[in-house]
């Protein structure tokens, strides 16, 4: 995918009428991506229970094309549902880098946003955005399943706006090493 994303826009622009092809491709790719957001099946804490509720019958996440995948290699989205503690920071970063591009991150709940009720704890990372880039934040402790649905809608809007010419969300993250989680 990375090669196509890099080479295709340049090739298309060189051709006559290429930018039309490019916008058509943009619309098509955005549309198909938008309805098959597959998250990594992975929950951290209390918020994960609300995430499970969102998958269940009443809220029915599947109707938005959100189907959990057990392996990060098959997933597009990572829902950080819960508290990221320092011991978990390394696995979270590794999982993120195992996902294929373009990849998105939704930070669910106050803990993942900023530490939440554990803002002064010695063992909690104060916001997952210190580890990995985040696309959508959801407030709440825990957020209701509806807000998770809304976050997915917001993410879909964001995906529709992505342009192939600008890399289409593929933001290669070369560094994989540890970050300063104590900051």
């Amino acid at each position: 995918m990375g090669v196509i994303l890099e080479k295709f826009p340049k090739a298309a622009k060189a051709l006559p009428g290429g930018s039309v092809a490019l916008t058509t491709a943009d619309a098509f790719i955005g549309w198909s991506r938008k309805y098959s957001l597959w998250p990594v099946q992975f929950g951290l804490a209390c918020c994960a229970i609300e995430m499970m509720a969102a998958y269940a019958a009443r809220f029915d996440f599947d109707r938005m094309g959100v189907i959990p995948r057990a392996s990060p290699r098959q997933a597009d989205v990572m829902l950080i549902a819960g508290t990221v503690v320092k011991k978990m920071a390394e696995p979270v970063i590794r999982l993120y880098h195992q996902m294929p591009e373009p990849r998105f991150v939704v930070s669910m709940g106050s803990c993942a946003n900023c530490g939440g009720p554990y803002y002064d704890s010695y063992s909690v990372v104060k916001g997952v955005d210190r580890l990995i880039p985040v696309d959508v934040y959801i407030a709440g402790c825990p957020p209701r399943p509806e807000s998770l649905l809304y976050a997915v809608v917001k993410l879909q809007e964001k995906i529709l706006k992505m342009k192939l010419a600008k890399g289409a969300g593929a933001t290669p993250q070369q560094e994989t090493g540890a970050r300063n989680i104590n900051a």
Partner: protein
Amino acid sequence: MTNTAGSRGGRFDQLFVNLGPQHPSTHGVLRVGLTLEGEVIVKAEPDIGYLHRGSCKLAETRGYHQCVVLTDRWDYVSAMPNNLAFCLAAERLMGLEIPARARHLRVVMCELNRIASHLLFLGTYGIDLGAFTPFLHAFREREMILDLYEMLCGARLTYNYIRIGGVMSDITQEWAAKTREFLGFFKPRMREYDDLLSFNPIFLARTEEVGLIDARQAVAWGLSGPNLRGSGVSYDVRKADPYSSYERFDFDVPLGKRGSCWDRYYCRALEMRQSVRIVEQALDGLPAGDIAAKGVSKTPKPPPGEAYAHVEASRGDLGIYLASDGGAAPFRLHARAPSFINLAILQEMLVGRKVADVVAILGSIDIVLGEADR
């Protein structure tokens, strides 16, 4: 996966497999290091701490009322008993007398929460063993309980409803009516779960002969809750050391026979029926009166001393030890968390089993990592 020994001496065919911390069936962030010989497990090392949030230490910087918020997030699947255990310990420290109505309301909420928690177990255990439908059914009923809680205190998971001295708010007529409606809806559903899951031949084959714990072993490892009762040991804090007027209610303690995964599972299924009975009795005989003790300060400073209180939480015997030095924050808070103690037996139970049984055994212990790690 790494081949630990290879051909350089040692056993040739030992394999080290990491289960977790990201694994769809570990119920949170548990890591188990498995050493395999072929398909058989020769060593299992549970590794916890992936959700250690330091809440016992944080409690030393929070006021007593603020600590209740932290306890909500231990066993987040059933937060009411956590609230209750902490409040009982704090009340013992302060020497408070709780009005009868508040005690009954606490019982109603804790038992409803037990149903919600066991429903979640039932659903996720089904998923672990490859049955997805019970999950949808169990969550449908669970949502109804969460709706009741939402009506009551505004929160679906983290209630902060049981407060030091009593409860946060009284129930309304409408709430009581809705709860009865739910109980009426729920009772026939338990038969449905039996048809769908409990006596399903595939489910039986995967759980009946698996993960046996005998009574001596269960006691030796300090198990509690349905895990202990599944092995046939009758110990329930509600009977053994009644708190919050549990002695007034008529209910049975379901026991398993052989301590297999299925016994533990079915114990929980039967416990839901008993919880329904308790809720009905509590609603019928709800005494009139206050819902909170008078004169609880907003920043309580209990006299120096220590207190211990324990309750039968959904996962077992949850104990809270509180020490006060006379200040506005606890001097020390320690929790005897059932999940943490139940988890330890994994290292013995998994040895000698096949890889395919790991998930069945892990699921049947029903741990919540938030409580194990705190």
